[in-house]
């Protein structure tokens, strides 16, 4: 058996050998990376999508050689932190209930019962701080290098929205442990919405009464309570990550359409 394989493989390198196997064909098939067939409709569709989405590997201008001293990896690290937060967050979701009677006990369990629970919770917390910091530093970098100038204006605006979503993501997560720190921190944050002009109950020219104003959409009542915890949980675990992921994809796509990272060449 082995001898036969050796005989077949004579004069071929490993890549060519591997391409002949069934495993290679099953994974890489000829749907995506197969031989170029100019008249195959699926192939041309895939190539069209790949071209629009800029999925092909590409070479960037040589300014990229100093990528460390130019971008300081701030944007890339923000994405990395987002990925890390998604992984650790998914782990925390297994043991967490968004219920005011259980949430605090669940978070205490991370320390005393769940294996590696405290490590994962610490990582989630500290990475969240780092991400907010790095996203804002990334904005500073983009401004200082003039990377918001044409054709990148739209990407700057998407970036500002991403900064806000990152802060909101972190803010909604702040409530979930349901301890004194979380409760009063979020109460302070939400009291801002209460004071919005026209739309807040306590703001100037208030049109809406307390419990029915713009603040109560977020809080789900007059004060922070069970509805708030559930809303913040859903925002934190579903809505905001989905929004961030979508906008991030658009952000990167625009970078590629603009010809890569802004540079002098």
């Amino acid at each position, binding site marked *: 058996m082995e001898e036969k394989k050796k005989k077949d493989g004579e004069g071929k390198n490993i890549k060519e050998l591997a391409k002949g196997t069934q495993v290679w064909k099953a994974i890489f098939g000829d749907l995506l990376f197969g031989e170029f067939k100019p008249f195959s409709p699926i192939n041309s569709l895939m190539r069209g999508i790949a071209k629009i989405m800029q999925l092909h590997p590409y*070479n*960037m201008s040589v*300014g990229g050689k100093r990528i460390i001293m130019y971008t300081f*990896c701030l944007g890339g690290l923000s994405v990395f932190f987002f990925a890390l937060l998604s992984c650790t967050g998914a782990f925390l979701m297994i043991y967490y209930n968004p219920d005011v009677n259980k949430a605090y006990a669940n978070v205490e369990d991370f320390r005393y019962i769940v294996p590696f629970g405290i490590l994962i919770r610490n990582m989630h917390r*500290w990475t969240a701080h780092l991400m907010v910091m790095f996203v804002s530093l990334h904005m500073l970098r983009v401004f200082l*290098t*003039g990377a918001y100038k044409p054709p990148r204006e739209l990407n700057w605006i998407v970036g500002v929205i991403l900064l806000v979503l990152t802060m909101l993501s972190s803010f909604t997560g702040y409530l979930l442990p349901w*301890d*004194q720190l979380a409760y009063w921190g979020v109460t302070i944050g939400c009291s801002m919405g209460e004071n919005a002009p026209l739309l807040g109950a306590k703001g100037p020219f208030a049109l809406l009464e307390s419990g029915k104003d713009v603040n109560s959409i977020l809080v789900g009542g007059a004060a922070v309570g069970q509805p708030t915890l559930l809303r913040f949980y859903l925002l934190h675990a579903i809505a905001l990550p989905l929004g961030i992921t979508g906008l991030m994809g658009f952000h990167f796509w625009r970078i590629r359409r603009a010809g890569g990272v802004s540079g002098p060449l």
Partner: protein
Amino acid sequence: MVEEQDESKEKDEVIVRMSRREWEYVKDVHITSNYKEGFETLTPKEQDYTVKHLRDSVGIEFIAGLLFTFIIMVWSLYMDAPLKELANPSDTPLDERAPWYFIGLQELLIYFDPWLAGVVIPSILLVGLIVLPFIDPNKESGVGRYSFRVRPIAVSAFCFGYAMWYILIVIGQFFRGPGRVFYWPWEDKTVVKVVPPAEMVNFHIAGGFAFFILFFGACVVVPKLIFKNLYKSLGTVRYYIFVCLMAIMLLIPIKIFLRYVFDVKYILSLQIFNTALNF
């Protein structure tokens, strides 16, 4: 920068015409490439200009990510995330504070009414950030490098706002103790400091109006006089948007200064339809 294929030279060389300034930059960046100095510079063929995106950019970022994973792991092993006692709506802590990235706004609450500090000022901040690419008149200068000299006004204006945001955060996070009272780092924050409430005064209503009219007037006129080209390059509409945003940003340190030095509570206090509008 213009590239052209020169027939007389070897096939894999391209002549790149560039200005003296571009040359100074290129010379600095591409140490590894074989450049020859001169107005007409010889470079290797176009392929050598570029680096592989996955290997040389994403790869570096991936290594940075690994490094930070290590840092976060060690940090998490030695420092626990804070967890205080169970939330109790009837027990307001003395030192209630927002998460650190919103503490700048909480800091503004000391100087402004909540509707200004929590809603109007952050909204103006966001609008300012969003319109920023459209009010910057220099569409090409300074792209792709850190340059203060090319666009001094833009860089200093942005850095002023950015620094103010972080200074407010640092003060709110490290210099405030129970009751949001100012504590020096060497003072014990567990000791509740009793600060006698200061006698605060409001400007007279005429004085308040006069202050705002003079302030915004000065903000419109003074940049025109100092930076001669600013008005011409920005155009009327963009100039007024820029000046208004800058004026609002400057009002924050001015109000803080007035509060601490002259105990001014409100510069302008209005009553419109039974609603108090205090600035």
